[in-house]
């Protein structure tokens, strides 16, 4: 739909009045918003403020992709949801909230995970994609799908106290195409080096700040008002309040759209990010088996590789050796007895075991499947899950 054919009801004009009376914005920008089609991928920490502001601003057609279910631990930052949504698919909770916020917009929800198989089809009907997902394979997948489909990708990312924002694959008024994620980061960090928010945590208000900035850039891309954050990369540190905007450029060796492109269709992003490479089996033990060991009087050692502050929240009497210092404390790890290694969910302990096996030749290490959370769920529900 061309924006100049867009009309508004009396109710809509009243609702959008504060936009329309800004001289630089006006009715035309509001028409562009109503005609726009935006796909928001991830309706969690970043997606919450992003979706609330896009819906409130009157973006006429919003698609939401998420496969997750609302959990109690989401409510600390995912302001789209309330207690009544816990247990519901996020897209359902989101649709309900957004429709009540603005009944004049169309919402389409996809209760599915974006993959190499469905990505191109999912984004096909949209003008702008906003990426608020939570892992490297999906970041590269969305980037590549946007570049291959010629869509603008409004990117935001957070971790603990750090936020990042940029607009990728944007063509400016002079017809010049801006950089994309692969120009900025040619390759992801090895798996495990940068923990996810589920493992590393995030200050709840941070996605509120960064997701709001993401909404701002989506609105600027749609309306053409202001200078879009393309060719620039914004970084915010909530602890020091340092924020910087760096200049970024296209890289001629970008495999997607550099001088000699080699990626012409979507690839296997789990493999690209090395998630699959770590497939060498390590020995595992589940919570119920561990409980049998505990009660049988078997002589074994148990090591917790989480951080001290996590240990303080809840522990199962294991010896604390945080992952970052495991190599320096190798002498503390028994060579003869069976040794169980545990963390919160089983990721960090798996990494610790691989490192210990690779560097020091351990053969007696067992990863606690599901980590302490699995143990609390299956053995001691009276302990505090976090």
């Amino acid at each position, binding site marked *: 739909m061309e924006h100049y054919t867009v009309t508004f009801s009396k109710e809509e004009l009243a609702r959008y009045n504060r936009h329309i009376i800004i001289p630089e914005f006006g009715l035309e920008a509001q028409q562009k918003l109503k005609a726009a089609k935006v796909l928001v991928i*991830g*309706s*969690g*920490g*970043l*997606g919450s403020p992003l979706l609330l502001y896009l819906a409130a601003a009157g973006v006429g057609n919003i698609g939401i992709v*998420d496969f*997750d279910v609302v959990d109690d631990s*989401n409510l600390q930052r995912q302001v789209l949801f309330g207690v009544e949504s816990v247990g519901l698919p996020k897209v359902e909770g989101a649709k309900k909230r957004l429709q009540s916020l603005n009944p004049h917009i169309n919402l389409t929800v996809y209760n599915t995970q974006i993959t190499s198989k469905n990505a191109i089809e999912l984004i096909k009907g949209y003008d702008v994609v906003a*990426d*608020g*997902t*939570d*892992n*490297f394979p*999906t*970041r590269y997948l969305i980037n590549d799908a946007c570049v291959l489909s010629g869509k603008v990708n409004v990117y*935001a*990312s*957070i*971790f*603990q*106290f*750090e936020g*990042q924002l940029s607009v990728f694959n944007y063509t400016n008024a002079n017809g010049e195409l801006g950089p994309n994620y692969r120009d*900025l*980061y*040619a*390759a*992801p*960090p090895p798996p495990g*080096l*940068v923990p*996810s*928010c*589920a493992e*590393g945590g*995030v200050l709840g208000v941070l*996605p509120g700040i960064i997701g709001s900035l993401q909404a701002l850039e989506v609105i600027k891309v749609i309306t053409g008002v202001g200078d879009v954050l393309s060719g620039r*990369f914004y*970084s915010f*540190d909530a*602890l*020091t309040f*340092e924020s*910087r*905007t*760096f*200049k*970024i*450029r296209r*890289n001629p060796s970008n495999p997607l759209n550099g001088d000699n492109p080699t990626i012409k269709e979507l690839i296997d992003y789990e493999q690209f990010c090395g998630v699959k490479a770590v497939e060498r089996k390590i020995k595992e033990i589940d919570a119920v088996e561990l409980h049998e060991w505990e009660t049988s009087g078997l002589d074994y050692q148990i090591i917790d590789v989480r951080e001290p502050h996590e240990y303080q929240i809840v522990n199962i009497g294991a010896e604390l050796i945080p992952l*970052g210092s495991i190599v320096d404390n190798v002498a503390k790890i028994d060579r003869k007895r069976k040794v169980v290694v545990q963390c919160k969910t089983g990721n960090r302990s798996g990494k610790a075991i691989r490192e210990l096996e690779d560097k020091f030749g351990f053969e007696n290490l067992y990863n606690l499947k599901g980590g302490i959370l699995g143990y609390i769920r299956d053995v001691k529900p009276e302990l505090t899950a976090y």
Partner: protein
Amino acid sequence: MATVFIPTPLRKFTNQTSKVEVSGNTVMEVIQTLTSTYPPLQRHLINADGKVPSFINIFVDDDDIRNLQQEQTAVKSNTIVSIVPAIAGGSK
């Protein structure tokens, strides 16, 4: 002395220090000085080929060193060197 901004994910290796004054005439010298002060930073900032890994961006003031002279980019006393790693959080 250049000022190096340490991103939050790497501050556990710098005793939570966010800003470090470091001497050096090039980005590589600055990184070497920094990692000799904080040895655990080394494996995050320098890969096996002796380069900054591709999931870390180094900016000298506002510019990406890849658009300047890479690790050999000159650093002056009032230069701000920012280390910006790839992060991916957002949803969960």
